[in-house]
Each structure stands twice: as C-alpha cells, then as structure tokens.
C-alpha cells in the first residue's frame, strides 16, 4: 500500500518537474527573443498572443509536426540516442534543486546528502549527448562542433567545480537544502571571496552550457549549426529543450549556492527562488547579446590561464578564512 502511494507521488512529482521544464523552456525562448530584440532596438515576436507570448507554443507545434529527417549515412543508434543524452541528464538534475517551500512542503524532489556532487556528475553527462550527435551525424561540421564541445566542457568544468567547492566549504555540506539554510542571515555572495567565486561560476557555467560568447560548438558562422546541423523536427527541439533546461539549471545553481536560494524577506520562498534564477538568466542573455564569440584558443587560454588559477587562489583564500 505504501509502495503504491510512493509510486503515485513519484509519478506526480515527475510530471510536475517535466511540466515545469517544458513551460520554463518555452518561456525562456520567448524571453530570450524579447531581450535580444530590445537590445537590438527591435520589438521581437509581437503577433501570437500578447507581445508574442504564444510564439513558443506555435513553434513547438510546428516542430512536433515536422518531418523527422534521417540522413543516409548517419551512425543510426548513436544518432538516435544523442538528443536523449542531451535532455535526460538535465531533467535528472531537477531531483535536487530546492525550489523553496509551499504550505510547509519542501519543493525538492529528493534532498540528497550528496546533492552538489550528483548535479556536477549529471551536468557533465550532457556533453556526451553533444559529442554523440557530433560523431553520429557523419558530418564534418557536426564532428568539429562535438570535439570543440568536449574540449570546452572538460576545461571549464575545473574552475566551475572549484568555485562550487568554495561555496560547499562555507556551507559545510553537499546537500542543496542545507546549503540554502547555511545562508540564512547572509547570502554567500556578500563575502568578497565568494563574490569572486560567483563570478567564476557564472562565467564557466556560460561556457559549460555552450552559450555565447562561448558557443564555439555551434558557431553559426563557421560550423553551420555545429553538432545539431543534421537534426530536424522534434530531435532538434530536444537539443533546444536541453539547452534551455541547462540554462535554467546553472542559474538555479548560482542562485542556490551564492544568492541564498529561496531565502528572502516578505515574498514567499518559491517566488524568491524564481526571481533570483530568472534574474541570473536575464543577465546571461544580456551577456549573450552583447559579446562576440571568442576563438577556440582564446577560450582555452581563458579557462586555463585566467579562470583556473584565480579559482584555485580563491579556494585557498576561502580555506584560510575558514581556518582563521
């Protein structure tokens, strides 16, 4: 009896998470189009619904109805699996993202005691999807995109994880919920060395999710569309969904680790969490539509010569502060 109830709860939570992901991704696509349009002094989508809010819905319907083209010489199993590898890890990360609490219920699917470690492990898997897509497409542009993505994500994982470790050291726990609780009273970002860690985290996270200025895996001007050149219809939509889910995840992580997560005065916790997350997302969009794409050598140089040393120095400072 208990197991059936647990099962029903699991299904309900899963459905809620999936629903949230889909709605959030559609909102983010619309929001990104709006932000980019206004940065370029345009209007953006205006016709479908109020200020084009339903544009993403129309796009999704279009993508669902589109023909699923399979090029002749693709490596079929790998090619078919790649979009799932791009989406599923991002969805799994939602297990331990603390959304706050509503009517006394903690809005977190499962507060794992190794939350951060779990998230780090899963976010690294999505590179596998990109690499599989690049290899399986049997296309030089896709392969180049996949290779670049692998190199980039491996490089930027180092400063990103070190900056996350700084937050973990201050909180003294790996559980996401407890990290938020450790920031009661003062958010981590208000400490100087944590502000540096936050900056490093945001920069390397931007690279981690392949967004401009670090979007060399899908650099339009040189690689057509990079790893998803050969994909169309719903498979392409899955890459897109994965990309925007990853965007949400890194912003939610930044909010949780450095900005006090769902904590804040007056407003309900869920609202605080969403305000912080979408605020960081907006900043990332602002950055995307401001800066040009960096070259591959600049990208690698920046990761290894600037971010990693600063992250390590910052970690040492954090250790010294804690031992003092």
């Amino acid at each position, binding site marked *: 009896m208990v197991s059936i109830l647990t099962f029903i709860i699991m299904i309900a939570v899963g459905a809620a998470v999936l629903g949230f992901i889909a709605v959030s991704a559609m909102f983010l696509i619309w929001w990104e189009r709006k*932000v980019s349009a*206004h*940065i370029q002094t345009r209007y953006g989508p205006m016709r479908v619904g109020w200020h084009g809010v339903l544009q993403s819905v129309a796009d999704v319907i279009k993508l669902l109805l589109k023909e699923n083209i399979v090029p002749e010489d693709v490596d079929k199993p790998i090619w078919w699996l790649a979009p799932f590898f791009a989406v599923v890890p991002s969805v799994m990360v939602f297990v331990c993202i603390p959304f706050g609490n509503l009517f006394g219920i903690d809005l977190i699917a499962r507060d794992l005691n190794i939350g951060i470690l779990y998230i780090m492990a899963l976010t690294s898997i999505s590179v596998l999807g990109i690499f599989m897509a690049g290899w399986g497409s049997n296309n030089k542009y896709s392969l180049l995109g996949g290779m670049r993505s692998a190199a980039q994500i491996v490089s930027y994982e180092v400063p990103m994880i070190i900056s996350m470790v700084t937050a973990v050291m201050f909180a003294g726990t790996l559980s996401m919920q407890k990290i938020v609780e450790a920031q009661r009273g003062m958010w981590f970002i208000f400490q100087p060395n944590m502000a540096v860690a936050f900056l490093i985290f945001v920069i390397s996270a931007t690279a981690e999710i392949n967004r401009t200025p670090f979007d060399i895996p899908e650099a339009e001007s040189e690689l057509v569309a990079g790893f998803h050149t050969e994909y169309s219809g719903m498979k392409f939509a899955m890459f897109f969904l994965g990309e925007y889910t990853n965007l949400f995840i890194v912003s939610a992580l930044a909010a949780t680790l450095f900005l006090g997560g769902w904590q804040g005065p007056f407003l309900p916790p869920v609202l605080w969490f969403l305000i912080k997350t979408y605020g960081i997302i907006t900043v990332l969009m602002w950055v995307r539509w401001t*800066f040009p794409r960096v070259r591959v050598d600049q990208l690698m140089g920046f990761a290894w010569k600037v971010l990693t040393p600063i992250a390590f120095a910052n970690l040492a400072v954090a250790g010294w502060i804690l031992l003092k």
Partner: protein
Amino acid sequence: MIKYFINIVAGAISLMKGLFVTFKNLFSKAVTVQYPTQKLQMTERYRGLVDLRIEKCIKCYMCVKICPTACLALAHKETAEKKKEFVYFKYNMELCCFCGLCDQVCPTQAIYLNQIYEIAVYGRDKLRDIDLLNTEKYGEWAHPTVK
C-alpha cells in the same frame, strides 16, 4: 605578472563598457515598426509611382522624351482658343525604372514620383496603361497614412 593582472582588469572594464551600451539599448525605443498595422511615412523625395498634378502640366513632352524606358505616353490637341488639352497621358508601370528623370526635367513640377511603396499587384494588366489623368488611379494602393 603585473601585466597579467592589468590585462584581466582592462578586459573586465572593456566588457563592462559593452554591457553598458546594450543596457542602454534595452530600454530605448524600438526603431522598427509593426509593418502591416503600422506604416512608415515615406520622405518627400521618395521615388514611388509616377503621378501628375494635372493643372500644372503644360504638355511640353519633356518627360516623355527623357524617359529612358519610354513608359510615358502623352497626346494633346489644341482647342479653338489655342489652349492645349489632354487626349491621353498614360503611364506603363511595368516598364518604369523609377529613375525620377521625368520629375527632374519637368519645368512646372507637374509630374512627380509619389510616396506609395506597396506596389505589388495580382495582375500585369493593373500595371499597364495607368491613366495619369484619373485622380483616383492609385486609390486602392494608397494607404491612409500616405498622402
């Protein structure tokens, strides 16, 4: 070592400048218009369709002569009081290259290019033999905002 840090700081400052520019743009008014519902007013010297101020025309045939594509056709007759009267004044938009020479050469500014820019039609017959003497000739093309 000092150069390394100077580089990083200078880079950060230059990035900030870029962000400031886009931030200003984010809150500035859009320069585009919502086309079918909102239309631009063309400028005075825009080269739209050839149009005629009938009362100003002195039938000097300068426009007909200068037209490089021969898209204008004009004929007149003299009345008993030695006044020139139109027989016809036709404009073939299919041939027109919108060069504006007729406008420039006209001594009385009778012929001119108007501001109509939505000139796509469903049939070629609508483009041929447009009667410049008919004041309602561009009625269905002219948008309310276009004078």
